[in-house]
């Protein structure tokens, strides 16, 4: 039974903020539409309207030409629309099987659960990804013991289990490794052939050209255009996404000064997924960490910041140290910028002033010198070219790029000697990224040592003059100079080196 879904004129406001001002999307059975847009373009919100998680203020949804309303996610599901988000719907204390079949459990006499059948059907679904997952992923595994990639797979299987007619994948590949993404795309092609309508929301250009039939682009809450994938190019799509401005040229960093003092030495560091890391970092150097997500990069950074216990040796500024708490690290001039700013970097409901000064209140006396504090914050905001209404406005009033400026700004106030960044530009729009890169360059010129993890290969290539690529908790390769190419990056992140060292 074919299906056509048309979203028209969707408007969604959150308090005073307009997330979507004119959202449109069309998809049919057997077609894969990718929905792309910079962060804050409204694509996630639009998809949530279609699946009933969020109520639109205006606009309509037409299913096979008939207007419909979805007051709850259940209502959308009943009409055959399912969505795969990033970990929004898994119950941590329940097993994989229980999660997949939640609200859809096979039952005996309409009442009691048939656990045997649940297990069997779950295994069938898990087999779709066979070969790309660990042995830990079984129907009876508790979801809270699963790593992010396997949780994402469970989310995907959960959506598929109800045999929907339309599936929306919202950034569903972000946590998956390469083999899992390949398998998913194989499955998507198969499902497409079987008549499913598919919407793929993604940040990654290569994914668009691997599976999409059509591309719908959103910008600033509006749908700005739809093109056939076969008729367009990456450049054209990017242009639609950023108002015609050219993609930012990160620009190579100048070669680092090899006579600068060594700021950081790490030997045999072991922490969680990170099995062994050794590195040397000099003042004024920007060392990149690369590789696929979840290979130990975050653990390395957190360990250096004192936020995770670790084994191994860390020598900072010539002296051996062991930080047991972030404040210890801060006292030694180390700073950490997290990637997930909403949950790790900002106190959203508190004022911008408080967010800027949170690490530094001790400087203002036992009874705070408010004037001095405000002065410092205003200066910091100016130096960052921050766009904000007032220092007393809540941090939640800032746009993505500006919010990230505050996250890094609170550390810059302290003039750190070592700056650790954990995928800081994830979800930051293109314009803000350029400002961010300029900031990093400025810091390194001033002599700050920077250790920078990014899941975006282009960023690493453009920004760093040396990159350590991690895979499965080990440093697989160190790339610099001429060897710093996309090919080598990718090869190393897969665990192989393209040429000899």
């Amino acid at each position, binding site marked *: 039974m074919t299906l056509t879904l048309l979203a028209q004129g969707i408007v969604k406001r*959150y308090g005073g903020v307009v997330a979507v001002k004119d959202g449109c999307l069309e998809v049919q059975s057997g077609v894969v539409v990718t929905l792309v847009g910079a962060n804050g373009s409204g694509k996630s919100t639009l998809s949530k309207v279609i699946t009933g*998680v*969020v*109520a639109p203020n205006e606009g309509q949804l037409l299913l096979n030409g008939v207007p419909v309303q979805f007051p*709850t996610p259940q209502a959308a599901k009943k009409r055959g629309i399912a969505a795969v988000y990033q970990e929004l719907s898994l119950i941590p204390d329940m097993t994989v099987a229980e999660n997949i079949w939640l609200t859809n459990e096979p039952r005996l006499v309409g009442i009691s659960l048939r656990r045997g059948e649940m297990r069997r059907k779950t295994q069938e679904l898990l087999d779709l990804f066979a070969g790309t997952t660990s042995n830990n992923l079984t129907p009876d595994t508790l979801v809270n013991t699963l790593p992010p990639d396997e949780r994402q797979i469970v989310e995907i299987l959960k959506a598929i289990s109800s045999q929907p007619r339309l599936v929306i994948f919202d950034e569903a590949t972000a946590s998956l490794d390469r083999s899992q993404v390949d398998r998913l795309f194989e499955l998507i092609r198969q499902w497409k052939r079987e008549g499913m309508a598919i919407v793929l929301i993604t940040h990654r250009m290569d994914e668009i050209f691997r599976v999409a039939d059509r591309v719908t682009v959103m910008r600033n809450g509006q749908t700005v255009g739809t093109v056939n994938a076969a008729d367009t190019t990456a450049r054209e799509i990017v242009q639609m996404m950023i108002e015609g401005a050219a993609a930012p040229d990160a620009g190579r960093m100048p070669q680092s000064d090899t006579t600068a003092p060594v700021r950081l030495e790490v030997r045999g560091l072991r922490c969680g997924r990170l099995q062994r890391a050794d590195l040397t970092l000099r003042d004024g150097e920007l060392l990149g960490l690369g590789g696929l997500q979840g290979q130990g990069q975050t653990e390395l950074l957190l360990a250096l*910041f004192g*936020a995770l216990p670790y084994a191994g040796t860390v020598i900072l500024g010539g002296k051996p140290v062991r930080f047991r*708490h*972030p*404040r210890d690290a*801060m006292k030694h001039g180390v700073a*950490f910028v*997290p990637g997930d700013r909403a*949950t*790790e*970097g*900002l*106190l*959203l*409901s*508190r004022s911008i002033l*408080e967010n800027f*000064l*949170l*690490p530094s*209140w*001790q400087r203002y006396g*036992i*009874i*705070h010198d*408010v004037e001095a504090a405000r002065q410092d914050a205003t200066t910091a905001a100016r130096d960052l070219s921050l766009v904000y209404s007032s220092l007393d406005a809540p941090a939640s009033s800032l746009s993505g790029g500006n919010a990230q400026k505050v996250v890094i700004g*609170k550390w810059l106030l302290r003039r750190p000697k070592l700056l650790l960044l954990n995928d800081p530009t994830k979800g930051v729009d293109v314009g803000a990224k350029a400002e961010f890169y300029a900031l990093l360059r400025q810091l390194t010129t001033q002599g700050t040592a920077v250790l920078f993890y990014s899941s975006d290969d282009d960023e690493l290539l453009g920004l760093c003059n040396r990159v350590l690529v991690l895979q499965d908790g080990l440093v697989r390769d160190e790339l610099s100079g001429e060897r710093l190419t996309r090919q080598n990056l990718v090869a190393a992140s897969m665990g192989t080196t393209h040429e000899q060292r």
Partner: protein
Amino acid sequence: MNLSSVSAGIQRSFPFVRHLTPPLIALLLAVLLFFAGGLVKPNFVNINQATNIVRLAAFLGIIAAGQTLVIISGGEGIDLSVGAVVTLAAMLTFRYTNGNNSLIAWGFVLSCGAGLAVGFVNGLGIALLRIPPLVMTLGMTGVVQGTILVVTQGEMIGAAPPLMAKWIARPLVFGLPGVIFIWLALGVLMWLLLNRTTYGKHLFAIGTNRTAARLSGVRVQQVVVITYMLSGLLAGFGGFILLGFSQTVFLQLGNNYLFPSIAAVVVGGTLLTGGMGSYWGTMSGALVLTLIDSLLRAMELEQAYQLIIVGIILLALITVYGRQRSLRQ
């Protein structure tokens, strides 16, 4: 309908009212209730009555100060042991001063010390052993009550130093009893603590987002332990002060202040989820609750009806003040 939409509506109609925060609304409500009392009972509205109400509210307000801190700290923070600590402090002062004015300072030290100790144990259990605050402070209530019984062996001997009654409960300056000045001083101190000290900033941080706070260098566990210690200290102080008012001590003395202390904090606009709030709000909340109580008493209703009305009013207040986030936006 909730407080923020009411507040937003009022702000749209009366732009100068931008600063109408929950504590202010509670204060206005208290004033309203006071004059409503005049409708019910002809001579309700007079200076004496007002003074009396503020005096009663002061005791609740002082005891609720610690509760305010604990609730702002988030993590389902709550201190159910304040009632028992109040009784403990009052008992210790009663027993060990034995009516002797020169020993008042010693009573003060004992009260605050005992409160600090209880708070410290609470803090350890909650921060280190990860016992939920509700359960930990509930358990400590039993320990404190048990301690009282062991110390007194069932006999409440001692006496309240007469100087305390003179300084605290009886008119001191301008016809106002000392406790009101003490309360105001505490109000100023709490404001300083919450808004002008590093502890205060860190407290709001951990109440808002513990992960972000830790990654910004806040020693979360330390702040939690200190908060419960402060709560115990303030409850101990409250118990000490209470002895100026209640010349006798009995095991249930503090119980009547426990849940009202939580209600006062909530009515004052502090969120039970943490990260937001103020002591001014709690002070207004204490006034509101005391007024409701006095009004009902003045109406000379049967206790049964009083209880029911208190419950309904509390529900109404929470409906306006304390609605949680919706699952669907």
